[in-house]
């Protein structure tokens, strides 16, 4: 327990977390500090490209092992399964309608790539290695949860559906294309390719992540300020409980796959995180009756900060304990 607290304390005073806290505090204090939309977009493109490229280069450097396909399959299963768990918890813990519960459940089956990036950064700073292909697992976990959540809502008579256009938008979502594309480039060009551009995608990475998290803090703070009243005690409890439940599913899957300590941490983080990029856009199209204040505030204002501050250190400690890493 003291290890977890030490890790959490060390994590809390890292530049990444403090940047997020600064953004959140500035928004809650109604400061006029803001990151323009185009700048936020550019920062996210940089982070997705860098994390994808480094993952691909790592796979090229260390070679593929048989667990890649199994890990991808496990990612799909987790992404389909977790919305059912989230939906059951929401119906038991809150008074959300079927449509709102389905929309929230979809967010918790999908993943937050920024939480994944933050966890990767924590692992790197602690010298804990992870399988490079976890980036591909992250990409593959984005979409299945959306389908599972929509199926849940349709089955419960809540309406909603998915047309050909939405299929394309989900599967060719910009963040998935960039992540998978950068992973492929990193894989094709290998460590030599990485050496050519490492001064751009390795050294400045943490600094860019700090700026991006400053913006995420601003967005989360604004969201809490504007929509915080929709978060009932039951929803707040769900926003903290669900990542812990999801992380246990990730832990079990990671141990079954015999992943490294870092790989288990990343799978736990993916299973624990909630989307706020791909899924909200899909839900606006497929389930417009669902209240965006509920799912965005839960995902961005509750679960994201929880994972960033306390969740990731807990996942590192638990994975180290169970893998002996």
């Amino acid at each position: 327990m003291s290890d977890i607290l030490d890790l959490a304390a060390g994590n809390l005073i890292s530049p990444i977390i403090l940047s997020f806290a600064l953004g959140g505090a500035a928004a809650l204090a109604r400061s006029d500090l803001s990151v323009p939309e185009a700048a936020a977009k550019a920062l996210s493109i940089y982070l997705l490209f860098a994390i994808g490229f480094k993952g691909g280069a790592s796979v090229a450097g260390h070679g593929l092992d048989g667990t890649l396909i199994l890990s991808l399959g496990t990612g799909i299963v987790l992404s389909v399964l977790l919305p059912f768990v989230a939906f059951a918890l929401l119906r038991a813990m809150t008074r959300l309608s079927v449509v709102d519960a389905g929309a929230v459940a979809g967010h918790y089956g999908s993943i937050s790539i920024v939480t994944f990036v933050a966890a990767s950064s924590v692992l790197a700073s602690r010298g804990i290695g992870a399988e490079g292909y976890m980036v591909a697992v992250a990409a593959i976990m984005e979409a299945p949860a959306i389908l599972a959540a929509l199926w849940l809502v349709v089955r419960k008579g809540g309406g909603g559906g998915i047309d050909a256009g939405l299929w394309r938008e989900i599967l060719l979502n910009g963040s998935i294309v960039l992540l998978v594309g950068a992973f492929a480039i990193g894989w094709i060009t290998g460590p030599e390719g990485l050496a050519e551009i490492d001064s751009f995608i390795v050294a400045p990475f943490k600094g860019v992540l700090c700026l991006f998290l400053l913006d995420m803090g601003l967005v989360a703070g604004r969201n809490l300020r504007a929509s915080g009243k929709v978060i009932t005690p039951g929803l707040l409890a769900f926003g903290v409980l669900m990542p812990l439940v999801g992380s246990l599913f990730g832990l079990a899957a990671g141990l079954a796959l015999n992943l490294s300590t870092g790989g288990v941490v990343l799978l736990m983080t993916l299973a624990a995180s909630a989307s706020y990029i791909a899924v909200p856009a899909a839900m606006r199209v497929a389930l417009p009756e669902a209240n965006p204040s509920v799912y965005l505030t839960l995902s961005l204002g509750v679960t994201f900060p929880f994972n960033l501050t306390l969740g990731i250190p807990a996942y590192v400690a638990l994975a180290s304990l169970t893998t002996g890493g």
Partner: protein
Amino acid sequence: MQTHEAKRVEITIEAPMERRLVRALKEAGVAGYTILPVLGGYGRSGEWSREGQVSRAGGMVCVICILSEDRLQPLLEAAFAVLERHLGVVCVTDCEVLRPGRF
């Protein structure tokens, strides 16, 4: 200079619905449209702003098209089919144009 009466339709809609809306407008026979970014706003569903949004989900866009009155009803019907379940505002105003053959 001689001007001619026309209708200006302004549709503020959730950004994820933009592509669907403009496809419906084209199918309804509009001669053209303009899409404008919207900075932020407040309405029945609360306050929103485009600042810092990495996802388009929380943003809105404004689609403007100008057309002759006889084309208005088919366009509104096509737009409504897309907008019916979504957040947004449709506003029709009178305007004057110089070259009516273009609309």
